[in-house]
């Protein structure tokens, strides 16, 4: 019995130490400088890879990411969260940071296009947006970037389509499909590629009318302004752009 409380205490201390490491890069004495990047959730896979490469090329520098919905990140930044770089999944949320004086002169670094995700093998034979008529499909709500894009694409197609559900983010939209609750889902190409073992992606021309452009900016109150500028520049260079292409992102200048 004696050993138990101390074990529990040790575990608790361990957990505390872990959280401490995870949260504050600055707390790690002896380690090099840390650049803190707030990035949209859809960038998770690509940015993790780019962060590793950046660290490998910059001796002693650490990259820390905070991945979340762009609007959450914009709110955190305008409320004063200590971040060096902000990468948003849309221009509206970047504009919020700019208006609040937290960011200046954002640069587009990638674009993302909607596809129709269907179960592997495409059982319903979906080939275009109008094929969704009569099917149950999921899309994002218009308040979030992927939903604004879905609305624009449907509008461009000139078809009368109503999803069975307007999801709060692109991942839960895709989840409705992978759980088999809908026949199709309007998601970003990058999300469909990340789930390619389960879903097929059907490209459709109208999605060009609704390209989501991802801007990045070094932040005004960055604790590490030099590194912030360096990371932003690195992201626009060939190496990082190749990683983004691999994940399914397009070059930002393909905007229609």
């Amino acid at each position, binding site marked *: 019995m004696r050993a138990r409380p101390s074990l529990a205490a040790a575990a608790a201390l361990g957990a505390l130490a872990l959280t401490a490491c995870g949260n504050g890069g600055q707390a790690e004495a002896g380690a090099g400088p840390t650049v803190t990047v707030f990035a949209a959730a859809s960038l998770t896979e690509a940015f993790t890879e780019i962060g590793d490469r950046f660290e490998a090329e910059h001796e002693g520098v650490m990259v820390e990411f905070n991945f979340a919905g762009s609007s959450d990140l914009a709110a955190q930044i305008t409320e004063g969260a200590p971040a060096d770089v902000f990468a948003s999944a849309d221009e509206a949320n970047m504009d919020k940071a700019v208006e609040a004086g937290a960011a200046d002169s954002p640069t587009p670094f990638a674009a993302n296009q909607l596809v129709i995700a269907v179960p592997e093998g495409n059982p319903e034979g979906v080939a275009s947006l109008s094929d969704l008529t009569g099917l149950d499909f999921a899309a994002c*709500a218009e308040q979030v970037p992927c939903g604004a894009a879905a609305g624009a694409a449907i509008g461009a197609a000139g078809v009368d389509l109503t999803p*069975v559900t*307007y999801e*709060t983010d692109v991942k*839960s939209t895709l989840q409705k499909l992978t*759980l088999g609750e809908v026949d199709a889902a309007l998601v970003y190409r990058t999300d469909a590629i990340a789930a390619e073992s389960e879903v097929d992606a059907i490209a459709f021309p109208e999605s060009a009318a609704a390209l989501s452009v991802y801007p990045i900016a070094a932040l005004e109150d960055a604790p590490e302004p030099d590194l912030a500028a360096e990371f932003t520049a690195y992201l626009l260079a060939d190496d990082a752009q190749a990683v983004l292409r691999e994940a399914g992102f397009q070059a930002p200048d393909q905007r229609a």
Partner: protein
Amino acid sequence: MTMNAISATRTRRRRRIPAALLVPAVIGLAFLILPLAGLLARTPWTELPARLAEPEMLAALRLSLITATAATALSLLFGVPIAWLLARGDFPGRSVLRALVTVPLVLPPVVGGVALLLVFGRNGIVGSWLYERFDITIPFSTTAVVLAMTFVSMPFLIVSVEGSLRGADLRFEEAAATLGAGRWTVFTHVTLPMVAPGVLAGAVLCWARALGEFGATITFAGNFPGRTQTMPLAVYLALQTDLEAAIVLSLILLAVSVIVLASLRDRWTATP
């Protein structure tokens, strides 16, 4: 004792609150109330009338009130018998069952929503049968909202009613039985009136929890205006674009729930 004497005793009693209770109570209250004050401080009051007139907002509020009430009714219908079984039943595995009943309290609601999909979804254990036999799909319907709310809120009712049943004096039930009342009559005429405050408290907790439900609803029922978009879902979506609008919507939900609960309390329970 005259009325004056009674009120005098009351005031004297009221003064003698031990500091050991008062201090933590005040700190606790501040902790509970300050976040609300924070919301109130950021509220753009001039926007309130415009928001109140929005048809989507009214639809969400109406849906929230209807579904939360339906979920509470379902919880009463099934939860009170469960509580009775847990408090009075004598069978092996009762403590395991009691622990299982509280699972929805611990489960993150989003996971609860996925669990509901796995059972009632198009490919779920029950859902696939309903879909193939009767062409019924539960997800993305108002029924799904009620089911999600019932799943997360019924345990509150069960725990509350079971506590009351365990605290109730068994001798009254025994006396009624001795006098010839059947088991059902004893339950409806003796047990239920005795535990009524517990049932009411449980129903209030249940209703309030159902009203604020977000995670299981968005996962299991999705979000469609007028059909499955409850107030918490509308608030969350408003939060994506407009913090102030989200605050206004939350305050409307809070105000309506406080008014409903306060008026119920006055009508149904004798205030001490």
